[in-house]
């Protein structure tokens, strides 16, 4: 059926396969995959915050490649704006792909005039433009897309894409309530299948999402603890001993396997990630939860640095505890600092860890 969007998507897959690397983002339901992508696209100015001031990786931004499907872009863009307005996000119903251009801007754009001049003179001519785009195509889908419970074209396409990907981002939410989850079994199953198929896979970025939820009661010290490698590793070790252990063992099995083409081996890195992040300038986890009080006053939760209108404050007294003053759009964006968001994407696409906040599996032993 030509009117069907999925068929068109599969056409796109075949045409773009030879040109740009493919990346699959996978993980259980509600692990924050789609929101990661939408936030990534909306925070051009902030992604460098978590990047080490390495000379090669000074500033990095992700923009949607113009060939991408506008509808898909609008859809995930809406997810971002919804979160910003404390609306309920939408469960991803079908897989889609989005083409990214990663733009790295050389350090010459920053610093003193003399410094910029020196860097310009020392750099290659190609860097003179300031931007060095790297392209990849990312495929996202519902957590159940890996499930064989829905054996349809969608499922097949997703699996096909997964098995042709050069990079995988595995999203594992670190919230305790998500530890026991049958979807991890599916994830494990798929990763094990992957081992047998000699995939072109090179980089696996394990994105430990919702990392901020590990520091709920420490107030302004949350950011400090999250960025302390010792604290963070200890927290992740604790997770690893839980039901994540099966997934980690599979990942361990994947690591070091020779890639299908070339002499290299599959590499695995873990990145603590928080899309909500920490409140800029304060450092506390950027998440609030107002418990339900009655049927009329259900639970409220979401981004702490969201847009809050005066009308909303007037209408709900409970909100005033969290937001004494209205927050406008620009302010909400300025305070919203996603944590380590860009790193797994960059790693899956290039194999470079653009952040100090990452671990290897060995670090967790």
């Amino acid at each position, binding site marked *: *059926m030509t*009117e*069907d*969007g*999925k068929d*068109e998507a599969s056409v796109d897959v075949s045409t773009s396969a030879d040109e740009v690397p493919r990346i699959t983002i996978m993980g*259980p*339901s*509600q692990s924050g995959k789609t929101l990661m992508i939408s936030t990534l696209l909306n925070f051009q100015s902030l992604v460098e915050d978590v990047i080490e001031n390495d000379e090669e990786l000074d500033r990095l931004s992700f923009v949607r490649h113009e060939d991408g*499907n*506008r*509808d*898909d872009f*609008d*859809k995930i863009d*809406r*997810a971002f704006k*919804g979160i910003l307005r404390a*609306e*309920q*996000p*939408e*469960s991803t*119903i*079908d897989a889609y792909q989005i083409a990214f251009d990663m733009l790295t801007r050389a350090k010459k754009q920053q610093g003193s005039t003399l410094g910029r001049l020196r860097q310009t003179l020392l750099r290659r001519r190609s860097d003179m433009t300031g931007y060095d785009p790297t392209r990849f195509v990312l495929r996202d889908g*519902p*957590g*159940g*897309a890996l*499930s064989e*419970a*829905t054996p*349809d*074209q*969608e499922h097949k396409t997703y699996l096909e894409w997964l098995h042709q990907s050069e990079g995988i981002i595995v999203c594992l939410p670190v919230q305790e309530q998500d530890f026991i*989850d*049958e*979807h991890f079994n599916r994830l494990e199953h798929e990763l094990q299948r992957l081992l047998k198929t000699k995939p072109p896979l090179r980089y696996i970025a394990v994105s430990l999402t919702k990392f901020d939820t590990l520091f709920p009661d420490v107030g302004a010290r949350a950011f400090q603890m999250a960025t302390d490698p010792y604290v963070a590793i200890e927290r992740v070790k604790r997770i690893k001993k839980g039901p994540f252990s099966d997934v980690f063992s599979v990942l361990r099995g994947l690591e070091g396997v020779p890639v299908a083409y070339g002499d290299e081996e599959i590499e695995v890195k873990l990145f603590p990630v928080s899309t909500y992040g920490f409140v800029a300038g304060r450092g506390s986890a950027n998440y609030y939860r107002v418990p339900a009080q009655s*049927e009329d006053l*259900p*639970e*409220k*939760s979401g981004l702490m640095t969201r847009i809050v209108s005066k009308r909303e404050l007037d209408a709900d007294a409970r909100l005033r505890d969290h937001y004494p003053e209205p927050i406008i759009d620009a302010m909400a964006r300025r305070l919203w600092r996603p944590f380590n968001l860009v790193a797994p994407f960059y790693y899956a696409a290039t194999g470079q860890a653009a952040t100090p906040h990452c671990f290897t599996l060995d670090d967790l032993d």
Partner: protein
Amino acid sequence: MTADTIQLHRFTYGKLIAGNQQSGPIVSKYEHQLTGRSVGFPEDLTEFCQPTRFFRGWPGINGLVDHDWAPRGAFLYRPVSASGKLFGIFARLQGRSEGGEGKAGRTYTHCSGLVCALRNWHPGVVWRAYDILFASYDRSQEIDAGGPDVEDDPYRLNKAPVDVSVNKSWRTAREDATRRGSFLFSSGERDRDQVRFLNESDERTTPCPDDAVVLSAMLLHGIEEDLAAGLGAAEPLHLSKASFSVGLKPRARGAGDGFRLQYWRENRQIFVSFPGVLQREDPYDLTRTSFYDTGDLRWDGSGEADPPEAATQTTGTELAPRAASELGPGNPGVTWKAWKSFDQSLFEGNVLEGGFLSVLAQHVERSLDADDIASIRAFGQERAYRNLINRTGMAGIARFRDKQRILSAGRVVTPIGQVNDIAAIVQDLGKVGELLSLRKEHAGLVCDGAQFAMFALRVVNALCRFRSAIGGCRDLWALIVFEAVKIDPARGRAALLAYAAAVPSYMSHRIRIAETGTPSFGELDRFLKDFDAHFDAATPAPRVLGPFSGKMAAVFGGTDPQGLAAAIEIVVRETDPLHVERMIEFDRANFSQIRLRSSPFSAPVSARPSVKRAIGGATRLGNEVWRILSKTR
């Protein structure tokens, strides 16, 4: 009456609800999939049951369904070809919370559907499918037929198919469908407490049956086009043409999803995209979509020039089909051919036939004696009379401007405020129609004077709320008065008086009759003259109140001051205070700037002595009313 039983297969796509309550949360981490279907469900169709398959580029359920307008979900129909067989899928598409009804949680897509095999296609199925999918939620049984499946239902994958009974006759089915004024837009289907049209005032929660009439007429009109072209019900072409959606948001430019007809709301307007033959490739391009702006309809005497698009499109010019898109928004985007087709059917009374609007027209027609009709014909106004009858439809009510734009107002796009007001008008007109039809059987018992005056004032009130409709309603109103006077002269005069006092366009009507010499209704003209003469000569109008107030007094209570006060109280109670203020405004400095743009004259009305006198009288009445109103406040 013969009836056919048609079997519809059921399916539900979405997330499974934990437990046995449909209002509960979903099963944890459940992903979208087919959660239920009927026994014998066509296997080939399974993959087409995903709502993402209905569209090119799924924008997400929140980006697709207009939840404010359609809180219980959008209704859509989509033909599907699977393994060489054609099916029609009726679907209810809704965003629901994963946490349960009314609870916080992610939104997921719920789609419940009914599948009709090609051989069973029948227009009556549309409405039956809607009935089933949007059946009222029965809280006592906790069952919503179009709702999600629950985990504890052991038969959810083996449901019984639905057998619906439809009338064999297409014509009857069509009439049934049109008569169903409650379809989709009625108060019964909207959550009246939470959802309200933007222009809707608190007391105005009346349904908008016009929408239903227009929609059903349009759908069926499309079907009939096929039939007229020699395509029977069994023709595959028919199925593929009939796709429609109601309650979706407009799509971005170029993101068309193949719906032939889409009905959506944006700001204060209802849009209907009716792409026509040559617009299949881009049905949601707004420049190709008919558009009617409330602002263009203003008849507020602001003195603004007509919108430019009115000048760019001359009546009778046959547009090349592709030229339509070059005219920009504000112009009908459908092809000229489609306009013509609709126009013709409008004049022939086909489109709204069977609807209660035309029932009213029929009532009116029946209530006229043969002599009446003969006299109308004698004035050479047969066509005008036919037009008037047709104008009882929504399209006709707004039809006071050039043909193309009126058609776009009536048929394709209706400003939502206008819909509300016209809905109220139409309701009242329906009552009049009934009253008129009863005239012969129950002469003298039609209604009492107060009842009729109330009715008259309500109509005037509705007219004044949306003044652009006044011009279009003028003749219709005149007919009502005309008929009412025949029933009971005094009460008819009350209605006329209310109209005359409240609606300045009455003046333009009088001017037209007086100055053009080509009255729309000769008898009405004579009546108006007699009426004026009678009251001017015979009524001892209290001078202090002015002639109009005197007439009002005469009608309602003679010259008795208490009767007058009572009459004015009725006016105050039944008339929009805003309108009274407007009446007073007429007396102020701005009056000289007022242009009655719907009149055939371009000169300021203030230049005309007759208008001055008339408005002066109306103003004095208005002042009097306002004085009392101020006291009562």
